């Protein structure tokens, strides 16, 4: 009996191994494990076995059943896997085809650079202030120590609406308005980004452009603080290895006044075409707030001091992104807009 069991098991295992597909495997299963299957028939003949051998035979039959079921399941799983594989293979696509286009938009490079500049100063604790573009002469000039007929007004040829109202030539009026609003309170620590206008139009000047100006007023704010602040800015904006150089200059609203150069990021300061061989590139103007400007806006220059700076966003953008013609910035050609 035991031998018969062994024989049937090995026959069945051979049949399982030989099954070519799911159907023939099912046939094998029925042939051995079905109601009329070989193993089932064998277990029905259990009564003919000696009582003493019966437990051993029962165990053998069960073991054979388990072994066969396991083999069938394994074989069946293999058939499933192969089928799935084949189905997936028929769904193969050319993965190298381009993706479905998703319309790409863009923010203007001036917006992006403006934001970069703002973020550097926000990181240093500045708030962002804004003001009107159509300004009174008082805020644009007089309150900044530029009375009528001051020769330095020529530095900023203006667009006028009347003798009293014009398009602001810088965002400095925002500084004046902020000081008025703060009414002597300290500290003042703002940047003023915005659109400004000057009567100039050539390859390096646009009648409309963008500026960011900054103003800090507090007790004991020094020219050294201005230098340190601008060094931090230059490094954040143009790379940590930048140096800055301050040169004496003149603005009616600051004293001392300084033009600020950064070490050339194209040649590292050795001299190249970008820096015209000098190793330095001018990026902004700055200085200690003129005592008269403080007085005009209600601050006592003996009690507090401050610094101010201003830069052209177009210039920074052109330098940083290698844009050679300022007119491209206002031309809005999609090929240009998409290139950033």
């Amino acid at each position: 009996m035991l031998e018969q069991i062994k024989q049937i098991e090995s026959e069945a295992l051979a049949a399982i191994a030989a099954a070519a597909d799911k159907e023939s495997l099912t046939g094998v299963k029925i042939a051995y494990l079905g109601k009329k299957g070989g193993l089932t028939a064998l277990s029905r003949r259990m009564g003919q076995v000696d009582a003493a051998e019966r437990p051993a035979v029962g165990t053998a039959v069960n073991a054979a059943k388990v072994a066969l079921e396991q083999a069938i399941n394994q074989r069946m799983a293999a058939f499933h896997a192969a089928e799935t594989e084949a189905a997936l293979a028929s769904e193969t696509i050319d993965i190298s085809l381009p993706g479905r286009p998703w319309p790409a938009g863009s923010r203007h490079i001036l917006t992006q650079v403006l934001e970069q500049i703002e973020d550097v100063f926000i990181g240093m604790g500045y708030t962002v202030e804004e003001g009107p573009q159509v300004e009174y002469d008082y805020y644009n000039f007089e309150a900044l120590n530029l009375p009528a007929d001051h020769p330095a007004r020529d530095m900023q040829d203006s667009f006028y609406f009347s003798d009293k109202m014009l398009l602001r030539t810088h965002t400095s009026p925002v500084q004046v308005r902020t000081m008025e609003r703060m009414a002597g309170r300290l500290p003042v620590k703002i940047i003023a980004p915005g659109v400004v206008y000057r009567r100039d139009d050539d390859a390096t000047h646009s009648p409309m452009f963008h500026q960011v100006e900054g103003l800090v007023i507090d007790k004991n704010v020094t020219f050294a603080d201005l230098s340190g602040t601008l060094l931090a800015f230059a490094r954040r904006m143009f790379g940590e290895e930048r140096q800055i150089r301050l040169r004496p200059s003149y603005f009616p609203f600051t004293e001392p006044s300084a033009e600020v150069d950064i070490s050339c990021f194209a040649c590292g300061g050795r001299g190249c075409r970008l820096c015209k061989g000098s190793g330095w590139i001018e990026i902004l103007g700055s200085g200690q707030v003129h005592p008269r400007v403080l007085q005009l806006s209600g601050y006592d220059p003996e009690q507090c001091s401050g610094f101010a700076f201003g830069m052209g966003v177009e210039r920074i953008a052109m330098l940083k992104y290698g844009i050679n013609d300022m007119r491209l910035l206002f031309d809005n050609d999609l090929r240009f807009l998409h290139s950033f």
Partner: protein
Amino acid sequence: MRVSYNWLQKYVDLKIPAEELARRLTLAGLEYDEIIPVGGDFSGVVVAQVLAAEKVAKSDHLSLCRVDAGAVEPLDIICGAPNVRPGLLVACAKVGARLPGGLEISARKTFGVVSQGMLCSQQELGISDDHSGIWELNDLLPAGTQLGQDVADALQLRDEVIVVELTPNRGDCLGMINLAREAAVATGGSICYPNLAYEENGGQAADLISIEVTDAKLCPRYAARLVKDIKIGPSPLWMQKHLLAAGMRPINNVVDISNYVMLEMNQPLHTFDYAKLRGQKIIVRPAEPGEMMTTLDGKARKFLGGEILICDGEGPVCVGGVMGGMESEVTEATTEVLIEAAAFDPVSIRRTARRLGIPSEASLRFEKGVDISNCDTACRRAVQLLVKYCGVTACVGAVDVYSEPPVPVKVNLRYERVNQILGSNFEPLEIKEVISRLGFGQETIAPGVLQVSIPSYRRDITLEVDLIEEVARIKGFERIPKTMPLNATVGGRSPQQQLLRRFKMLAADCGLNEAVNYSFIHPREADLLRLEAGHPWRHYLAISNPLSEDQSAMRQSLLPGLLHTAARNLARRNLDLRFFETGMVFLPAADYAAQVQPQEILTAAFLLAGRPEESWHGQAGEYDYFSLKGIVERLAASIGAGRLNFQACRAEYLHPGRSAAILLDSLPLGVIGELHPQVAENYQLDGRVIVAELALEPLFLAALGRGNQDHDLPRYPASTRDIAVIGSDAVAECHIEAAIRKAGGAILRSVRLFDLYDQPPIPAGQRSLAYALEFREDSRTLTDQEVDEAFAAIVRVLADKYQYQLRQTGCCEHPAE
């Protein structure tokens, strides 16, 4: 300002090359632009002597010359100059020489003779325009010059010009001597002033001329000196070289000396032909309105009144500080000259020069303000040069109307304040040393306080802080440390600024490209937009001095800018146009007289046109009204402003059947629609152009006002129902949706249109709308009965109010649950 290195060398021993000097001046606040080599732009031209000159037989003007150019054998040279003669020292361009302009000299055969070079005129060497004959060098060459020596070297023709960009406060450095003071400080040298001594043998000037100034404010000083026995001729070569380097053309000795002194001392001079001054008198007075005079450029000038006029006994002879008159001009025949050195009111000069359109080197200097204490010194310098180089006879003394010499400026400087402002650690001794290097007087008047006397030429220094700047720039800005302000503050953008930033990012994420256009436009844009006569946009803020008419009107809409942007791109074959722009539009004040600030409204505009790029996935449809409406709705929702409403509206520039007003609740924000085809044509755009424009601030305020919302997930399940209704297509869809929301009550949480059908079997003039409805209650599960009742209420309202009937089950493509 063109600074000649050789000229500067006369006052300071520079010891360093031009480039290093330029760098040091830059770091002291006198920024240089470039260094230009000037003079002697030629090679192979040597000093030579004419040994013999014979007329060439067949020619009427040519001579055959034997010329000793320092070589063993003399050269044969054909020369056409009338002044060529034996003994003359000349500039000889040998074979192989290169002249200014690139001309190369080669041996040429003329009248049977090979000419081995060329004898040069001043013009041929770029010295002056003189081409009347060859340049005679006998009186010009320094002793010890050898024949064969390079002419440019022998005559020191080569120089370098440092072009300095002066800041407006340093008008004093328009004078070489003042600039030399800076060079001396920058190089550690000392300055050597010209010697002004000369003899006066011509009688008392005061007996020969009287001067009267009627308005001391317009002319605080008027000094004059007289010279006689003038012979007009060329000025000395060194002076011509300096003038040329400075950018002025030499004319004659009187004009050149007058220009030279102006450039040297920053004091413009004017010269009158004394013989032509009627009544032997000068009167300085404001012009009468309507008064006329002919200036030396031959133009008749009419005055508004108040301009500074220099008059003789009978009438105006010069526009003071701006331009001389025809009648009193110095000419070849002049023998006696009156030299004027005056100080004029800068503002008056500035206005007059502007109005007459004749800015000059002189008016520029008067505008910046001359050193009033220096007037007569400059006058003496001119006389000294005339005596020395033109042999004139100087009259005795000056006539000098100088009503009120200015009080010397004294400024107190606190050592402590220097370091307080600069953040530096300069010692009192260092500060004192700077002041003395600048040549300013100083006196300690209290502990820690220095009283500094400011020289009259430094009119820019009036305050303590001006002196602090001097200390900083002379010590060098690099000596000041770099620190950070110690005040700790919280920085950031305002909530509205944050929203604008977010808005732009979202718009870009929707596939739109940000444009930046000028805020000023052409007034004609109103016509291109077909705006009717009384349209508010036709009442704009006008720039009174625009660069051109197309930049003369402050925009009241961003659309013209975007339409031009689209047209420009289309013309360049950029065909998929998706743009947005944000910026200010300017609404003039109601009773606008260009005196009151306009309202500046933060606005956004959008444009879709052209067609999406084709791809292998299949062609996307043309942009339409709904493409842009979807973007606008999404932007409003994404920044948290809530739902927008759209109402059909008419705008002249939009398609009458495809345009809508955009509202937030009942507040109009702007418009959206298809551009009117006529307007599209006006802007050279074809195909459908979809635009929108809306005010941003109300949108931002709504977003900021919405406050915190409940972010818990719903705890009880929702019931969903679909409803399909059919009715007239004349009813705007938004009314149907609003009616559903209202009738559904508080438990109706969401309404979404998922189908619109107006094809057969739907009868013409009707349409079917299908909505997905979601009902929910926060505190419990709704019963079927409650939902059924709400649904029935919706059906009833739609039928009663809009005659929209429920569609029969089964004829809807999306069967109801």
